[in-house]
C-alpha cells in the first residue's frame, strides 16, 4: 500500500485550493531516517545541541506506537516512508514582499496576506512548505524590543531565551507526533515580548502547504515576559491533492507573571490533510493564556490545546469550534492542569457535524487534592446537521479534594428539517439556511474574535455549507 485513500468528497475551497508549480533548492527526499534529520540540520546550520535533540527525538518517535488504542485507526493510513520532510527554496525569510520569489508571492497575495498585514497586523510571517518566505515586524513594535522571527533565526540569534524554554512546555516524549515534530521541525515562529510591553495589534503567521506528499512541521515558541501582552493569529491552507499530507506542529506558550497570551487559529486545511498538532501553554502567577481554536477542514484533526496553570491565580481558557463535514473527523478538545491555588480554567467547545462528518470532544481537567480555590467550567455543545453524523464527548475531569469547584455542561442539538424548511420559506437556499444555523450556533463564541477573523470564519462556514448540499 503506497497510496493512502482520500475520502470521496469535493468541497469548494476556492480560496485555498490552488497550486502553482515551484522548484525547491533544498529537498530532504522521501522517507524518514537519521540521514533525513542530518540533512535538515546541515541545511539549517543547526548547533550541535539541536542536532542531538533532533536525533534523540527521532528515536522516541520510532519507539512510540500509534495511539490507535484510544484514537481513530485512520492514523494507520499515514505512510511515513512516503512523506517528504523538508522542502524549501532557501532558509532566510525576506523582509519585504518584493524580495519574495514570484510564485510564492503570488500564492500569498491570492490568500490576501500582504493586504491583511497593511490593514491590521503588527507583524507577519508567511511559511511556504518548510520555511518562512517572508517575515516582518512593524518598526514601531520592533522598537519596543519585541522579537518576532522564525524558529531557526530564534535559535541562532537568541539562544539564551530560546534554549531556556524550548521543549520545556511540551517535552519530546509527550506523544508520537510531538516527537516527530522535534526530530524534523522547521519554520514556525519565535516570539519574545519584553516585560510590560503590550503589543497592540496581532502578530500573524500563515502556514501554507504547497507540495504533495509533504509534511509540514512548524515549531512555535512564544514567551511573554512579566506583564506583557500579545495576540498571535495563525491561518492555514493547502491545495487539495490526491495523496495525504501531514501537518504536525508543536506550539509552546510561556506567560510569565501577569502576562497575557491569546493564540487564535483559523485553519482551513483541504480534506487530504492529517492535522496532528500539540499545543500547550505555561501560565505563571496571575498570567492568562487563551486559545481560540477554529478547526474547519482536514481529513483528521487531533488537537487538544492545553494550559498548565502553574502560578497562583493563573487563568486558562480554550474556546474551540470544530466543523466536521462528510469524510472528516475533528477530534479536538482541551487540557487544563491546575498546579496552584486559585487557578481558574474555562473550556467552551462547540462542534458541528455535517453528513457523515464525525466530531469528538476530549477534555482533560486535572485539579489535585492539595489545592484550594480552583475553578473549572467546561461546556461542550454539538450541533448535528443530517442524521448520520456522529458526535462523541469524553470529558475526563479529575478533581480531588473539596475546596475546588467544577461545572460541566454538555448538549447535543440538531438542525431539524422543520428549521431548514422555515428558513427556505423565507427565501434562503438550503445551504444558506444551514450556514445561518451554524453561525447562530457559534455566534456567542465568534463575538469574542477580532472582527477580521469572525468575518473569515463566517465565510469559511458559508463555503463549507455550499459544498455539502447536493
Amino acid at each position: 500500500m503506497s497510496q493512502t485513500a482520500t475520502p470521496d468528497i469535493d468541497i469548494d475551497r476556492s480560496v485555498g485550493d490552488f497550486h502553482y508549480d515551484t522548484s525547491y533548492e533544498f529537498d530532504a527526499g522521501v522517507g524518514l531516517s537519521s540521514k533525513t534529520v542530518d540533512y535538515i540540520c546541515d541545511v539549517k546550520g543547526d548547533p550541535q545541541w539541536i542536532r542531538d535533540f533532533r536525533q534523540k527525538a527521532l528515536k522516541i518517535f520510532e519507539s512510540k506506537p500509534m495511539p490507535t488504542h484510544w484514537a481513530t485507526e485512520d492514523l494507520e493510513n499515514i505512510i511515513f516512508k512516503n512523506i517528504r520532510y523538508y522542502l524549501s527554496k532557501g532558509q532566510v525569510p525576506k523582509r519585504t514582499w518584493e524580495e519574495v520569489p514570484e510564485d510564492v508571492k503570488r500564492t500569498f497575495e491570492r490568500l490576501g496576506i500582504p493586504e491583511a498585514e497593511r490593514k491590521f497586523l503588527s507583524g507577519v510571517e508567511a511559511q511556504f512548505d518548510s520555511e518562512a518566505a517572508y517575515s516582518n515586524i512593524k518598526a514601531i513594535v520592533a522598537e519596543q524590543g519585541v522579537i518576532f522571527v522564525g524558529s531557526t533565526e530564534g535559535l541562532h540569534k537568541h539562544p539564551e531565551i530560546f534554549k531556556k524554554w524550548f521543549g520545556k512546555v511540551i517535552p519530546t516524549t509527550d506523544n508520537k507526533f510531538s516527537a516527530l515534530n522535534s526530530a524534523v521541525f522547521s519554520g514556525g515562529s519565535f516570539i519574545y515580548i519584553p516585560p510590560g510591553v503590550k503589543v497592540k495589534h496581532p502578530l500573524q503567521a500563515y502556514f501554507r502547504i504547497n507540495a504533495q506528499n509533504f509534511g509540514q512541521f512548524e515549531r512555535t515558541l512564544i514567551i511573554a515576559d512579566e506583564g506583557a501582552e500579545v495576540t498571535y493569529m495563525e491561518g492555514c491552507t493547502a491545495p487539495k491533492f490526491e495523496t495525504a499530507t501531514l501537518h504536525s506542529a508543536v506550539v509552546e506558550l510561556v506567560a510569565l507573571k501577569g502576562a497575557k497570551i491569546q493564540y487564535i487559529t483559523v485553519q482551513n486545511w483541504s480534506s487530504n490533510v492529517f492535522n496532528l498538532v500539540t499545543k500547550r501553554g505555561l501560565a505563571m502567577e496571575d498570567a492568562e493564556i487563551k486559545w481560540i481554536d477554529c478547526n474547519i477542514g482536514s481529513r483528521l484533526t487531533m488537537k487538544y490545546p492545553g494550559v498548565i496553570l502553574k502560578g497562583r491565580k493563573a487563568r486558562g481558557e480554550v474556546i474551540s469550534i470544530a466543523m466536521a463535514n462528510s469524510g472528516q473527523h475533528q477530534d479536538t478538545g482541551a487540557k487544563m492542569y491546575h498546579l496552584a491555588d486559585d487557578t481558574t480554567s474555562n473550556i467552551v467547545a462547540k462542534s458541528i457535524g455535517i453528513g457523515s462528518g464525525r466530531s469528538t470532544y476530549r477534555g482533560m481537567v486535572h485539579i489535585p487534592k492539595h489545592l484550594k480555590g480552583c475553578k473549572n467550567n467546561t461546556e461542550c455543545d454539538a450541533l448535528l446537521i443530517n442524521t448520520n453524523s456522529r458526535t462523541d464527548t469524553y470529558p475526563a475531569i479529575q478533581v480531588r479534594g473539596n475546596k475546588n469547584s467544577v461545572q460541566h455542561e454538555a448538549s447535543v442539538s440538531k438542525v431539524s428539517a422543520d428549521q431548514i424548511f422555515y428558513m427556505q420559506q423565507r427565501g434562503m437556499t438550503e445551504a444558506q439556511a444551514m450556514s445561518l444555523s451554524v453561525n447562530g450556533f457559534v455566534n456567542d463564541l465568534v463575538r469574542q474574535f477580532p472582527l477580521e477573523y469572525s468575518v473569515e470564519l463566517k465565510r469559511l462556514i458559508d463555503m463549507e455549507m455550499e459544498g455539502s448540499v447536493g
Partner: protein
Amino acid sequence: MSLIIKDLHASIGERQILKGLNFEMKPGKVQAIMGPNGSGKSTLSKVIAGHPDYTVTAGEILLNGENILEMEPDARARAGIFMAFQYPSEIPGVTIANFLRAAVQARLPEGELIDAVEFYETLYAKMDMLEMKREFTTRFVNEGFSGGEKKRNEILQMAMLEPKFAILDETDSGLDIDALRIVSQGVNKLKGPHMGVLVITHYQRLLNYIVPDEVHVLMNGRIVQSGGKELALELEAKGYDWIKEDSLVAA
C-alpha cells in the same frame, strides 16, 4: 398576478389528504379557507410552500401561469409566496435582524451585497408601522417567545419580504384576544392591492378582526362551499355538519 390551484391531489405517506382541490388566490383580496380538523387546511398551505413531507400526486399550482410544483421551497418564496407558520421554528443564536437580513440578501442577484443602512431603515420603518419595539430585533428567532410574539414575528417577516401572496396558516392558534387583535391589526395594515392574503383558520373569531372578502369551506380535501364573509358567521353558528350533508347531496 395570479395563483391558481388546479385539481390538486396531495398525500403524506400513504394518506391522501387533498383530493382534487381547486382554488384561486386573488391579488388585493383577503380570502379565508375554513374547515374542520383533518379537512386538509394545513396540508394545503404546506403544499403551496413546498414542504418536503407532502407528495403531490396530481394537479398543479400556477404562479403567474408557471407551475411551481417543481420549484424548491426557497425559489417559491423568492417568487413571492409567503407562509406565516402555525408553529414557527426556533433558530438558536440567530437574531431576528440577522435572520431577516439573510432573507433579504437571498433575494438579491448573486454578487450583490445588501445595503445595511437601507436595510435597517426599512426594518425600523416597518416595525414602527407594526408598533413593535426595536429591541425585538436583537432577540433570537422564536427562542423563548410567547405565542403572540411568535405570530408578530411572522407578521414582521411578511412586512419585510413583501410577498405577492401571503398564506396565514392557523395564525390565531394559541393567541389570546389581545395578541389576536395586535396580529390582525398588522395584517390589516399590510394588506392592499399588491398582495393576496389567504387566511386559513378553524375558528371564525379571527375573521372578526381580519374581515375576508370571500370565505371558502374545505372538507375532505376539497372546497365544498364558497360565499361572502357572512358564511363564516353561519359556520360559527351552525358548525360544519350541515355543509357535510349538503355537499354529500351535491356530490
